């Protein structure tokens, strides 16, 4: 039958046609709903995933020494990161990611969680400072986890390695404790100074992060840049350090533990500050690399993280005798001419106090007592005074306070007093006369930081000027591109009595010329070329029966050797303190270190300056800044 004569077929085909157009109409309605009614909502979503606002990390300012030698530089580093909005949520993804990157899964999960809660900001760094192998790994891992990206960011490089680890400190990611303490000051993922000058100068050194609006594709790769606020580099700062002198201090200390401080007598600028053993700040830039843990934290017997120059408390030993002498002269219990007889020991309060020379020095004036470092002479001085007299003198010249150096966590020099004893030992608050006798030779309750001691010798060198040690020397001005000097911290002048001063100065001169320090040939040789002044010190760590017993003792129980002084004798320029731990006598180990400092500063520096650390290191990524020192 011809289908054209079948009414049913024709009717139903007609119905099909209606259904067809109904279908088209239905689809049109669906698309009208999506494209017209909900358009703005979807437009928003499309924008959100394609247009991103990303922070541009700002480089920190450089750190240079007073002569313009770079101590801290920046270079470009690649990091494997996750942007905040791309942080993975699924636990299995986080675990797989941690395994792929050899990270600890629970730690990574915690980190991701805290970054997610923190909202917008710097991306989470998973692997930092990628080397070639790291970049290859990052590319492999990115294929599996497309939300990862590689970010270019500035990274610190400490050019001298261990040269000035404690002074410079290092930077790191702001940690949760700091975040909690000052939530409006720090932001998660931000890099801040953690130790040393990086920490104390953080506000000056840190730049201002920029921002850019970019178009990204599905893999998060930047396709186009819609404009940006450039990051503002932090200020480049100059330190008072002299890199050459610092290098001399480092070399002179060698493997010995201890500290070296050299101060500029004009204004208190720190010319050298070296704490031994030092550390290499470069190793602390990576989040707890195993290498760093092994070298510095696990091996904590030598306590390399302590800046001994400002945090080490040492018995000053004989270097303290100058303060005792000053107090005695001011109190009037002796005159410079008073002769006191040393028989090798003397009894006070029913107990024998021995002199370092068992056979005795015989009759001594003050200059001779200082030069020979006679203990009995200073026992006698102490016995004629109260401990509070010694304290009062220290307080008068401002030596009982912190020096106020611009480094974090400076410890305070401890000069005992009756009030101090009451406060510190409530169970035994009484001050005994015998304790004063010990303080007379810098033992007992007295404890100083090398920097605090150096400040005292600076005071002696300047006849009463109390300087404030500092590191901040100047900064590069943005306007003139020249070096602007930093404000010099205040000094306090409490002039010493000229007669008293000349006795002390003479004594210190004699120490080097004919006294305890003159036994060392190197010290003698340098002193011949550049007369300088100083005082040896030996700080007891333990008590020994006799010299044979002492010789058998383990190294760590040996006495600390000290040498404190100033140079040159006429018109002094620098004050210095050297502490060599467990080295024995000050004359044999600390004085030669000081002599090397004097040799460099007064003799070598101008004619034959040492090259800056690492020579002229050329860094291809270094920013285009060539600061010329004044």
């Amino acid at each position, binding site marked *: 039958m011809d289908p054209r004569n079948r009414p049913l077929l024709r009717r139903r085909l*007609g119905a099909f046609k209606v259904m067809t157009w109904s279908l088209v109409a239905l*689809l049109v309605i669906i698309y009208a709903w999506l494209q017209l009614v909900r358009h703005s909502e979807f437009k928003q979503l499309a924008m959100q995933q394609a247009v991103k606002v990303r922070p541009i990390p700002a480089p920190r300012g450089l750190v240079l020494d007073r002569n313009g030698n770079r101590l801290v530089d920046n270079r470009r580093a690649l990091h494997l990161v996750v942007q905040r909005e791309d942080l993975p949520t699924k636990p299995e993804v986080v675990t797989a990611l941690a395994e792929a990157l050899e990270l600890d899964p629970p730690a990574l999960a915690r980190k991701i969680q805290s970054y997610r809660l923190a909202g917008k900001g710097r991306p989470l760094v998973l692997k930092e400072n990628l080397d070639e192998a790291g970049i290859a790994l990052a590319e492999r891992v990115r294929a599996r986890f497309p939300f990862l990206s590689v970010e270019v960011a500035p990274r610190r490089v400490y050019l001298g390695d261990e040269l000035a680890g404690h002074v410079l400190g290092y930077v790191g990611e702001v940690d949760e404790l700091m975040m909690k303490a000052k939530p409006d000051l720090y932001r998660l993922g931000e890099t801040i100074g953690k130790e040393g000058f990086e920490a104390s100068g953080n506000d000056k050194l840190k730049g201002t992060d920029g921002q850019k609006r970019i178009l*990204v594709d599905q893999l998060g790769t930047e396709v186009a840049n819609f404009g940006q606020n450039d990051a503002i580099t932090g200020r480049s700062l100059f330190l008072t350090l002299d890199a050459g002198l610092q290098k001399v201090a480092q070399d002179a200390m060698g493997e010995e533990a201890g500290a070296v401080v050299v101060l500029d007598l004009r204004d208190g600028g720190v010319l050298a500050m070296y704490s031994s053993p030092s550390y290499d700040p470069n190793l602390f830039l990576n989040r707890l690399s195993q290498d760093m843990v092994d070298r510095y934290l696990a091996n904590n017997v030598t306590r390399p993280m302590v800046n001994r120059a400002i945090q080490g408390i040492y018995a000053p030993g004989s270097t303290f005798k100058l303060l005792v002498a000053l107090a005695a002269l001011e109190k009037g219990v002796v005159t410079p001419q008073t002769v006191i007889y040393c028989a090798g020991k003397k009894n006070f309060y029913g107990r024998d106090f021995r002199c370092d020379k068992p056979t005795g020095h015989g009759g001594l004036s003050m200059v001779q007592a200082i030069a020979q470092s006679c203990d009995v002479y200073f026992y006698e001085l102490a016995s004629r005074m109260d401990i509070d007299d010694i304290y009062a003198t220290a307080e008068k010249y401002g030596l009982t306070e912190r020096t106020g150096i611009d480094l974090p966590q400076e410890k305070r020099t401890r000069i005992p007093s009756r009030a101090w004893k009451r406060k510190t030992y409530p169970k035994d608050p009484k001050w005994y006369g015998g304790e004063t006798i010990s303080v007379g030779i810098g033992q007992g309750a007295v404890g100083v930081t090398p920097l605090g001691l150096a400040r005292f010798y600076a005071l002696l060198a300047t006849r009463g000027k109390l300087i404030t040690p500092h590191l901040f020397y100047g900064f590069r001005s943005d306007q003139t591109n020249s070096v602007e000097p930093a404000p010099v911290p205040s000094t306090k002048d409490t002039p010493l009595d000229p007669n008293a001063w000349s006795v002390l100065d003479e004594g210190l001169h004699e120490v080097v010329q004919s006294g305890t320090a003159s036994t060392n040939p190197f010290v003698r040789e340098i002193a011949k070329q550049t007369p300088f002044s100083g005082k040896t010190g030996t700080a007891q760590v333990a008590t020994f029966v006799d010299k044979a017993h002492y010789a058998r003792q383990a190294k760590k129980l040996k006495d600390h050797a000290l040498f404190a002084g100033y140079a040159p004798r006429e018109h002094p320029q620098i004050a210095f303190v050297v502490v060599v731990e467990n080295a024995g006598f000050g004359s044999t180990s600390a004085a030669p270190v000081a002599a090397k400092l004097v040799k460099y500063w007064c003799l070598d520096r101008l004619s034959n300056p040492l090259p800056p650390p690492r020579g002229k290191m050329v860094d291809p990524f270094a920013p285009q800044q060539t600061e010329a020192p004044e």
Partner: protein
Amino acid sequence: MRERFRALDPRLLWVLLALIALGTLTLYSAGRNTPQAGIWLKQTLWNLLGSILMLMLATTDPRRIFRYSFASYLLGLVALAAVLVVGKKIGGATRWFIIAGQTFQPSELMKWVTLLYVSHRLGSRNADTVGRLELFGAVGLVVFPMLLIQRQPDLGMALSFLPILLIIPLMKGLRTSWVVALLLFIGVGGFGAWKFVLKPYQKQRVMIFLDPSADLQGKGYQVNQSRIAIGSGGLIGKGFTSGSQTQLNFLPVKTTDFAFSVWAEERGFLGVLLALGLFGLLLSRILDAARAAHTNAEAYFCAGAAGIFALHLLVNVGMVAGALPNKGMVLPFFSAGGSSTLSFFLALGVIMGILHRSRVK
């Protein structure tokens, strides 16, 4: 030769050319800046080859074509069985033969061959007296290749055979009870399929359809990105080659399943109206051919063809908008692909032949 071109129905031809133009532009934009940059050119070659085949079929007497339908059907079954044994496995499915470096999907063509043979069988019977057995037989002829295809597995393709059954309501004597039986069959079959036939990933797709936000990074991610593309296109679109979703690769499989989203994003609602209007005209013209056909078989073929085209339209355009489950079904003349393109042209060739014969006699 001029005579031969006369065989092409002008109204169908213009609609077809317009759709091809739209599809080619879409593929050009979708392939831009990707490894598939040349895909529009490749698709143009398929379109040209398809047009030649269409021309050949249009100038052939449909009755001669129907005569070969049984042999073609058997050959198709052999091919479907063979692909399960020697076919190439891509992405967990064995659907393709590799011929001269090109993948060829026999199920695409089998859909039309099945339609051809079922139309031929039912058309040769008297529509008023066609028996139940005959109808069940026809259903069996459709379901058997579907089962073979589901073995590959390829649910979308298998389902695209169902419009062939639209022929049945065109028979006289079809009572309401038959329609109920058919619906029951689909219902029970659907349940059985869910229970025993469907693979886990297929079930997952259905689940995602029911709750698209459950798995945004997985299969739901594709549809979600597609909806963003379509919706953000707005009334006039973002402009040719300027769709952010397309050009920044947020839109997945944009040269095949989600090609229409590219069009919708870049040409907007007006572009969608144009494309859907053209598809409506295409379907309309095919149904016109069914009414003008000289034999029952020809009428049935055209009706079934309209159904198959309509299903592709509904499922693909609905799917990319998130209104239907994510089922891999291509959109004719938009989605890139050799087998499907050639098959659509072949079907249109037969329809044009039918229209041509209805005009000349």
